[in-house]
């Protein structure tokens, strides 16, 4: 058999260090068993440590706060704004934002039917979050479990899984969207299903690649020799190692899912009015770009800010969970810079 029958198994996922860069034991790989062995108390201490680390990084803190705000808005927003989001006022359409005389509800202006943009954004937050988060979680869960299973066992299970991934990847998700829209009903849950199915292969492939590579590692081999059942090996040894990577992919996907939802709305086959999501608001507002820019800029900004925050936090999380890099975060800002400079000097 030629070496290439390996079928991209080694493909490291986004952002992972290149294979050659890491000699035999990667610090992340060792973190798994180590963490497992740590006593419970240390666990708790590590958690408070994480908080402290987070607070020390201003940008990451800001990102975390933004996401918290989004989550709170999704939870409470619709309750707070009441029926403001649907109350039409055809006499006050397209009022510009940041004009105080209209009252706080119209601080972000009003839309083409005179509804408060602020209230609509708040309600849309819930729809968007309740589409994006479940879609990402479902595909993450299914894809990664399946991928680890396939990569751990290799053989026909792996081939079957990879070809299934190919099938899903080359399947037109637009058709799925139309089917769901007209055969079932255009609800958020159905959009979640479409997006989740379409994204499963991404996690499947990543998880499989990682776990196929781990499967041949010494500590996994040892566990197996001692008679640990495969499920337990995957849970205890493979999962902790693969998880940071999968989470990074998931944050990137969070953004992708929101954009896909928006594109579906553009094509008229996504969330349907009178329901409202950021994507739909951006898509509907596009016809007013030249006259009332705020109608698509604000929801667009909401998408951008949320995804950027998620990416920032994910990047921070990766560093924070990587024992080899964590020291970067635990230093005060000024010192960090000088350490880096010193490091470079030494290197030269």
């Amino acid at each position, binding site marked *: 058999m030629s070496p*290439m029958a390996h079928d991209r198994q080694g493909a490291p996922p986004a952002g992972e260090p290149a294979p050659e860069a890491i000699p035999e034991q990667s610090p992340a790989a060792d973190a798994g068993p180590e963490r497992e062995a740590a006593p419970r108390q240390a666990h708790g201490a590590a958690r408070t440590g994480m908080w402290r680390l987070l607070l020390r990084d201003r940008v990451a803190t800001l990102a975390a706060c933004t996401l918290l705000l989004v989550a709170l808005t999704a939870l409470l927003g619709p309750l707070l704004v009441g029926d403001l989001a*649907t109350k*039409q006022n*055809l*006499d006050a*359409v397209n009022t510009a934002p940041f004009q105080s005389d209209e009252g706080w509800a119209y601080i972000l202006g009003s839309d*083409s*039917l*005179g509804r408060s943009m602020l209230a609509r954004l708040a309600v849309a937050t819930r729809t968007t979050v309740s589409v994006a988060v479940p879609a990402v979680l479902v595909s993450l869960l299914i894809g990664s479990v399946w991928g680890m299973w396939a990569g751990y066992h290799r053989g026909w299970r792996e081939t079957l899984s990879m070809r299934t991934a190919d099938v899903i990847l080359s399947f037109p998700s637009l058709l799925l969207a*139309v089917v769901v*829209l*007209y055969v079932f*009903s*255009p609800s958020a849950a159905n959009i979640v299903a479409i997006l989740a199915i379409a994204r499963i292969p991404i996690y499947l492939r990543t998880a499989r690649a990682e776990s196929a590579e781990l499967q041949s590692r010494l500590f996994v081999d040892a566990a197996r020799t001692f008679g640990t059942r495969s499920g337990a090996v995957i849970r205890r040894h493979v999962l902790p190692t693969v998880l940071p990577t999968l989470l990074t992919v998931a944050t990137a996907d969070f953004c992708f899912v929101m954009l896909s939802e928006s594109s579906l709305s553009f094509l*008229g*086959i996504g969330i*349907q*009015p*009178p329901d409202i999501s950021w994507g739909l608001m951006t898509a*509907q507002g*596009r*016809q*007013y*770009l*030249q*006259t009332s820019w705020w109608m698509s800029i604000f929801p667009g900004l909401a998408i951008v800010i949320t995804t950027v925050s998620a990416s920032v936090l994910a990047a921070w999380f990766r560093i924070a969970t990587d024992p080899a890099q964590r020291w970067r975060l635990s230093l005060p800002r000024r010192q960090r810079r000088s350490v880096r400079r010193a490091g470079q000097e030494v290197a030269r």
Partner: protein
Amino acid sequence: MSQPSQSRATRRNRMIGRFRVARRRTAVAALAAGFAVLVSSCTVANSDSLGGSGSGLRIVLPEEPPTLEPCESSLTSTGVVVRSNITQPLIERDPKSGDLSPLLSTGWKRTSDTRWTFTMREGVRFQDGTAFNARDAAYSIERAVNSDLGCNVDGYVFGEDPLDVEAVDERTLTVESKEPDPILPLRLSFVEIVPTSTGTAKKVRQPVGTGPYEIGRWDTGLKLRLDRNKRYWGKAPSYENVTYQWRAEGTVRAAMVTSDEADVALKLGPLDGAGDRGVNHPNNETTALRLTGEEPPLDDPRVRQAVNYALDKRGIVKSLFSGLGKPAGQLVPSGVLGHNPSIKPWPHDLKKARALVKAAKADGVPTGKQILMVGRHELFPRVSETAEVLQEQLTQAGLNIKLKMVDESAHLEYQLRPFVPDAGPVALLIQHGNQAGDAAFTVDQYMTSKGAQSVMGTKGFDKVIEEAGRKSGKQRQKAYEELLKQQNGDITQFAHIAHMRGVVALSPNVSYRPNSATNDELRLADIRPAG
């Protein structure tokens, strides 16, 4: 290169040896092949140049014509290119006055109750060089109306009964209908004439006709060019050639005119950004809610009246259609034979609407039952917002409305017989365009109890409609006026919204006045260079 990596690399080279070289070669070959495909395919979008824009006219449509088959020309996307440009009918209707004028037929006469006789124009040749005579006309009518092709013109313009068509001699054609039909010439103005060499087994994509332009080159997906027909029997049109392109987004179509990439852009919305290049025109379209009359609560006339009172037509036209339109009280706009100028739109009276709903409720009508309001994307500009406004206004009247936006195919299932089974009470958002200029085309479809798009009607009303259809002249006008009034009062199948107006963007280089038929048949001969 620094040493460690170098030594590692050389070691590996040695280890893998020949195998690796082979692999690399294959990969390079694959990449090269891929790139070659890429480069060679570049020619697709740049296949040939337009030539000087001085001699050509550039038009941008919302969608590519699926086919140029003349018997499908009642489909807007086909008709707008084909009708009166590539092929021509026997008789042409002036969209402004509604009068019929001779085209391939120079004169026509009603020779009996059911029979019409037409005289053919002499000296006309098809674009392929063959001479036109009555046989071609007879063949074209047979092909469009009586054949198994399933032509759209057939369903739109003609009823179920076949026509008896005969070419008496080279210049004389008789057409006989089963029932007396005073507007047969008008109906025939929708049949485009093709030579007898056109097949009946299959629809043709690129027809031959007698029109001022012939098909030059059609790069499917990209553009369509028509060239001036050198054999044209009439006055030569102003432009040597006409290029059609299509862009789905209204803003993009408008932008193409403002940035001088196109001379004419059709079917724009008021907010698409055409600016002072935009010209608005009546488009003979009327928007309305069509109400099913069999299911409660819509089976109660009071509820249907309440729907009419609850809609703020003036407000919708003002804020959603940017003032482009007129509140409507009937399905046919002025300019169409049968339009009743004395019908005023239902007044906007929320109190009355509420009272009617309340009264119905008191009589045991389940007014809280959910009514499905079905709208379709791209029915007209800002349709989904309009639907939301309608939903809101009906909700205020005390009704329970669920809005559902669907695509064209799903919308048609609600619009046409056989209707969606078990749909419950439905308020369907429709836009009806009467291209023909006679109320019969509206009424037969929308108001008879068996009409293809009608969900309500009575035997008695069917009879009234049938009688009106037999009349002609002033009597016809009067009969349809009465009938439209009766529909509003006795049946109330519709809650009318507005007679719409469309927007066309025109470059300063062209002179053209859009009319009510512009979106259905854009007569290229009417477009001239400005100045």
